[in-house]
């Protein structure tokens, strides 16, 4: 074959760094650094999901213990700092991790899309003109860019539902999380949203838990097999824990019957919690 008369554009960089930021921000300029940030914030967010799920198990103890748990979150830090101060620090930290996690994911997706042929806009995945045969990529890894936005939408829904009580209206009682959860999840469409979103969350976590080890370079043939096992374990525990709430409310195993305090009587809950 004769050499092409003009050299094809194969050696022209697609991405150029306009400037180098000072350390440590320059780490975030690289894809690998961004994957580190995605992994580290992923660990933080995963920690939150696990703790949130475990904390929610107080529902099974009843309205008084649920109230007590919610109150203990607000008074984190004891007498050392103002009430809800530490809670707000944690909340802002979480929000910051969310922003970084989403920004790194979105910007890397864009980079991959621009580096690819025929990539679709949202998934950013390269397409071939013929049918592509995937071997190793599993459902979880290929849907990260779909489950991610689903989780974000669900998060906003969840906050509006149980933190701000937008549509529960008068049925939303500040200080009675047990009742709020029952009131929200006894509505079938809402319960279905919770189930679907949590399945998406678990799929996301399944790939993320394994992937973060690779991104951070935590790799050793001695324990590499355990990384998949851990991902399955974490995903499984979160799946069972989080799905149990909508399922048990729907089946009527958790309900507002047999309460020692009336719905809306937060003072009663406080008294009971003190006695407890």
């Amino acid at each position, binding site marked *: 074959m004769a050499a092409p008369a003009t050299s094809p554009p194969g050696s022209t960089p*697609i991405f150029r760094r306009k400037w180098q930021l000072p350390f440590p921000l320059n*780490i975030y300029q690289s894809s690998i650094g961004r994957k580190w940030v995605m992994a580290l914030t992923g660990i933080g967010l995963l920690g939150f999901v696990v703790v949130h799920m475990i904390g929610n198990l107080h529902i099974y103890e009843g309205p008084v213990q649920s109230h007590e748990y919610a109150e203990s979150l607000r008074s984190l830090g004891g007498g050392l700092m103002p009430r809800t101060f530490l809670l707000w620090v944690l909340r802002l930290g979480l929000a910051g991790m969310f922003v970084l996690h989403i920004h790194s994911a979105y910007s890397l997706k864009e980079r991959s899309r621009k*580096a690819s042929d025929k990539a679709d806009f949202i998934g950013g995945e390269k397409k071939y*003109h013929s049918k592509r*045969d995937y071997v*190793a990529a599993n459902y979880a890894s290929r849907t990260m860019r779909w489950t991610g936005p689903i989780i974000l939408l669900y998060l906003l829904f969840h906050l509006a539902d149980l933190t701000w009580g937008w549509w529960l209206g008068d049925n939303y009682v500040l200080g009675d999380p047990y009742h709020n959860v029952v009131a929200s999840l006894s509505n079938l469409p809402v319960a279905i949203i919770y189930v679907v979103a949590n399945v998406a969350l678990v799929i996301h976590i399944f790939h993320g838990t394994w992937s973060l080890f690779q991104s951070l370079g935590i790799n050793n043939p001695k324990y590499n097999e355990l990384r998949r096992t851990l991902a399955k374990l974490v995903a499984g525990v979160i799946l069972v824990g989080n799905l149990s709430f909508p399922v048990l409310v729907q089946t009527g195993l958790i309900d507002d019957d047999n309460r020692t305090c009336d719905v809306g009587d937060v003072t009663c809950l406080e008294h009971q919690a003190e006695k407890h």
Partner: protein
Amino acid sequence: MSRELNLTLQIWRQEGPHDDGHFETYAATGISEDMSFLEMLDIVNEGLIQDGNVPIEFDHDCREGICGTCSLMINGQAHGQEKATTTCQLHMRKFNDGDTIVVEPFRARAFPVVRDLVVDRSAFDRIIEAGGYISVNTGAASDANLTPVPKEASDTSFDAAACIGCGACVAACPNSAAQLFTSAKLAHLNLIPQGQPQRFERTESMVETMESFFGSCTNHGECHEACPKEISLDFIAFMNRDYVKAKVKNRKLAGQT
């Protein structure tokens, strides 16, 4: 007597880098099962030339599976469905009589199509130029075993050095990332004593060159499956670790290690 195959080929034809390509259908008849995939294409090309048509352009060189020149997405898989095999070592006995085979070039924006199935993979050369070497003054040959190398390190370095730079990893990657190639080239030198003096400088420079051409890894693992030399994903983790280490280090004080 070896079996003979009659196949239908759907092959990507493209005049040049800036032209729109399209699939064309060819019949490959009387193909011996002992032929390699490239020999089968040679037969098809012979027919095309005899009929006065333009033959299909494809990359090939050693045809022994060690040079990394051949490429091709065969039925949606880089180098075909056979594991740990380059296209030139893929034999027609792996196909059945009457099969339809779809052949497309490797794709990524950094791998522009030159013509038909030939792509320009010179972006890989840019990555190698950025640090895929060691700088030593050559002189008289030194004694063998002058530099002690741990057996495990030399074995793993050799596993990484098996990379032939064919680009199947990029072709298979849904993100068009070149992490497997770059990490193999890095591990090849970074694992052994001879590579230590420039280890972190090399890592920084090769990774940043890679990132100016290719997408970002999402840990699917498709590259490893497509790799004709079965380069391990472990090298990608090793590169991720070394890159951030390189950024954090002050090499004036810490030297290279």
